[in-house]
């Protein structure tokens, strides 16, 4: 949004502009948030400013798995109780949460920070590929679980990883691709259905 010609004080224009850059915040909401902050007590505004500074200053990426953490290595990589022979590869830090919620997986993670996206100029060098391969070189890891998203870019990235890891002789698995729980067969597309058929199991 161009706030240059607005008849408002510079700091106000600046804050509106910054809010407007956030996801899901349009020009109207940016103005509303700014004028809300103008009338709250100073402590409240400072608490918000401090919380923003804290996430930036205290959080960094784990040097092993590249999850977001406030200590390095992160709690998962440090945990001796977890199975250090398994690494689950995910696209983003946020993907770890649903997997942890299942309480079924006790291994480690590796966050790629994206998927290969050639038309955006994103290849393996822009992602944590090299770092994954060097983790696999110590001979400790026996299984890599590819948990990239089940869409075209996620699948292609998994296929490429499979090609890179295969020569190391490590077991490579992919999360089962099939019908979503609670979904209707009627709405399933052919790719989902044919993958679900391929992955069918004895009952």
């Amino acid at each position: 949004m161009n706030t240059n010609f607005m008849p408002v004080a510079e700091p106000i224009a600046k804050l509106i502009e910054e809010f407007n850059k956030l996801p899901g915040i349009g020009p109207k909401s940016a103005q509303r948030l700014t004028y809300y902050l103008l009338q709250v007590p100073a402590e409240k505004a400072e608490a918000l400013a401090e919380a923003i500074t804290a996430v930036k200053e205290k959080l960094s990426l784990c040097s092993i798995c590249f999850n977001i953490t406030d200590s390095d290595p992160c709690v998962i990589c440090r945990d001796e109780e977890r199975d250090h022979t398994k690494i689950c590869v995910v696209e983003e830090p946020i993907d770890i949460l649903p997997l942890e919620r299942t309480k079924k997986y006790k291994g480690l993670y590796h966050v790629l920070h994206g998927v290969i996206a050639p038309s955006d100029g994103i290849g393996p060098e822009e992602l944590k590929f090299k770092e994954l391969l060097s983790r696999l070189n110590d001979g400790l890891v026996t299984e890599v679980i590819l948990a990239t998203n089940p869409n075209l870019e996620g699948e292609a990235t998994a296929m490429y990883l499979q090609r890179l890891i295969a020569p190391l002789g490590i077991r490579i698995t992919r999360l089962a691709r099939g019908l979503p729980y609670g979904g209707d067969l009627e709405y399933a597309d052919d790719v989902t259905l044919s993958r679900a058929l391929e992955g069918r199991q004895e009952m």
Partner: protein
Amino acid sequence: MTAPRVYQTEAIIIKRIKLGEADRILTLYTPELGKIKAVAKGTRRPKSKLGGHVELLTHSLLMLARGRNLDIITQAQTIDNFLPLKDDLERIYRGLYISELVDSFTAEHIENRRLFDLLLNSLHQLSQAQNGELVLRYFELRLLDYIGYRPQLQRCANCSSPLQPATNFFSSSQGGILCHECAYQEPIARPLSLNALKVLRLWQDCDYATASRVKTNRELSSELEQVMREYIKYLLERQLKSTAWLDKLKQESHQPM
């Protein structure tokens, strides 16, 4: 006459970007409306009814509702998902490359039926063809034709004199072949072998079945790739981003191209 509030179209999904929590903005290439953008709500949730029907490189029948900014996809049914293409790494990225080409060379809401047919046919070809590189070259040449950049391959693009059956020169700025005389005045024109010229001439006016009968060796195939790449780069005033990744994949795999 006011446009109807809902409408139906076939479309090939050529690009998607994330929007908010669970939505996507799709770039679609359609037979009658050319390139359009539309919102697919909730498609990043597993239970989305649109789901795989609006996946990249899918040919689908869509129902859309006019929105204030972007139209919204309300229903989707797959016509062809090019499954054999999606099970192969090289094929996927070739498919994404031709999508990037279409996206880069087209503006929204300009109908180009021949281009739609070419894109659709090329995705079919990429799903089956042994020689994926050949499909890409043929696609590039025909795409440029359909959007008004058909290279002049029959006569000298500068002086119109007939060409000698020998090595000539390709000039991106003149959009075609230069004779020896004219090439002297334009030092950036690249030499083009007689074989490469013959292949390009044939492809310019034949169908896929005929085009795919051309036998290319590594040298010829690389020459064709370079000349097309330079011409495309000149027209777009930039390198297509996908080419770096295609090059890397090609380098890593040991299959003959």
